[in-house]
């Protein structure tokens, strides 16, 4: 199976999911569509680098490319260098256990939309940390920020997410 065929199959099966990955990074729908297309073009151009490791590997590889494409876009947009004052970071509005319980009680689509509502910098770090599995050191190097900034943004994302879940429960 050549690249075009495999990508067409992936498009048919996982197109919606891959677009949702783009939207998680760039919540603007039109921009996400652009990122989706750019991601597929990038996948086609780099098809030789793909290593088939069994079912799901193409989906994982494509989602990685989508995330990369979005990160490149966000880096150009440069929303990351709005460093916050660590001293002004609010304390957590909810404990982790409460947050876990709250997340469990929210519908998947609603939770997804909550993530889209997060500020760009917080959403980006949350996506990379939680969904892509990067460490703060890797996030810091990728985005050109400090590790502590990455950690702070994740913390803020958590706080914001907890607040939204509280509002959702109401």
């Amino acid at each position, binding site marked *: 199976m050549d690249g075009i065929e495999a990508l*067409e199959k992936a498009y048919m099966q996982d197109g*919606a999911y891959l677009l949702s990955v783009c939207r998680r990074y760039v919540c603007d729908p039109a921009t996400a569509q652009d990122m989706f*297309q750019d991601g597929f073009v990038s996948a086609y151009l780099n098809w030789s680098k793909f290593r088939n490791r069994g079912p799901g590997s193409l989906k994982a590889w494509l989602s*990685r490319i989508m995330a990369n494409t979005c990160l490149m876009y966000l880096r150009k947009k440069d929303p990351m260098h709005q460093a916050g004052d*660590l001293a002004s970071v609010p304390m957590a509005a909810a404990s982790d256990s409460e947050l*876990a319980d709250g997340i*469990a009680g*929210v519908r998947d689509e609603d939770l997804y939309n909550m993530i889209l509502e997060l500020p760009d910098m917080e959403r980006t770090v949350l996506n990379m940390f939680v969904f892509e599995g990067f460490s703060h050191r890797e996030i810091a190097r990728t985005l050109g920020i400090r590790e502590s900034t990455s*950690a702070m943004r*994740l913390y803020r994302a958590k706080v914001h997410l907890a607040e939204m879940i509280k509002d959702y429960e109401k």
Partner: protein
Amino acid sequence: MKSKDDIQKDWQEILREKAGNVAGVQPQVSFAELKEKMVAAGAGVFAGAGRGASAGAAGASAGTGAAAGTGAGTGAAAGSGRRGLSWLKYAAAVAVIGASGVMLFMGPDKGGAPSSSTAENRKADEVTVVSEPVLETEPAAAAALLIEAVDPVDNGQDETIPVDLTKLTANDAASSNAPSGSSMQRPGNVSDNLSHRSGESAGSQTYSSGLTAEQKASAVAPSKSTKGEPASTGGDPAASVKNLQTAEASEPNGQINTDYISENAESSSPATNASNSAAGSNDTQSGVTPVEAASGNATESGDSPADAAPAAGGIKQDPFAEPVKPIKKQLRRFSVGASGFLASNGIGNGNSNSRNMPADMVTYTDRNGKVFYSYSAPSVRYNHSAPISGGISLRYNFTPVFYAESGLRLTYLHTWISPSGAAQDLLYAGIPIGVGGNFVRLGNASFYASAYGMLSKCVMGHNSAGFPSNYSQLSDIPLMWSAGASIGAAYNITRTFGLFAEPTVSYYFPTSNAPQTIYKENPWYFTLNLGVRFNLN
């Protein structure tokens, strides 16, 4: 009760499961449109890809050059860069295979003619080992024993002529006990005769005037044994017979001229038999004839013209003997080997090459030192491919037994990291330094053991997903130290070329800030090195 780690994992995992699999709206663009864009972009890229393609070809040919024996490391390293890594492991494999091919080409002597110094290490071993009993036996026996130091194929003759051992041994036994005047040679005579014997027996090797250093080294044992003693004293006829039988068995090409021996048996001076039997060659360079040996004066070449007269005592010249040449070396000092391995398993860690790393708790504090946030890194799984390694080594034999070894070894380590999907590729170049010994020789096979230490430096590395690793540059990656021991079996297909297999146990010293590799997780490692070795002159 759940720990904080569990709770943190919970909210992350729940979030990942619930929001990560949400399939939103369908893409607006159809795949047909997408395909047009992809093809158009591909055409643009491929139109300008000529340079990249040729760079790849250059890298590949550099790898082939490495296979030609110029150094696997050089060739493999020549393919640096992301493009080079995709073919790196293939180039390494080609390097090893190519090295063996080149060595096959270079190994055998052209035309099948034996070289002048075909003496393997084993010959020197035989000299050392076999000559030890001679210390307590007769010089004649010692002379015969020295033949064992001779390359049995150096004369290029394959035929074996049966020997009348009855005559030979009886005569020799008589000679070793005969207190005749002619047997009362000065000690040097014995050793000189021995050296004649050695030189003649060496076939294509030269007997030059006097003793060469190698001859002296070969004859050191019998020289000592006869020093200050009459040639006929203290001998054990049985030992002589036995030793002469041994000598017969190891005569050049296994051949002994029957006539020549029988005439020796009839020699009037029994004590000269050893010399006679040793002086069966037509020493055109040295001018020494069998007469000299028979007369007990064949101590040095370039004697009086009378010494060079044809044998009057009916001693025939060995028709198979060739003009002798200088003995250059009896020990092949250098050998070059190329080896590699593909797959192996860590000791004590089963066959699994993947591992979940424990969560890493990180805490951040504000300016007042108050903890404002802590988190545990998500569980990361490392799937390590079997390392691919190859290299070349240079061995120097200090003695027939002990040697030192060094070289260059390249090791390719691939790791697939999930859930990020990133692939980590690292190429280490290591310089091993080791010592060892050849302990057992059985014909063309030899068995040895060695120990080594190796210092490896990462010379290439990248992450296929395009994300940076924790190291901004190669110099950030610490050196990798390892040590190991191996036992090996080698088989010499020709005098210069052989194959070997070395089961090796290695230990890679853990370094805290080293990249996550299979060696970091399984520091004990067992490998089977397979390779070829080329014995240099």
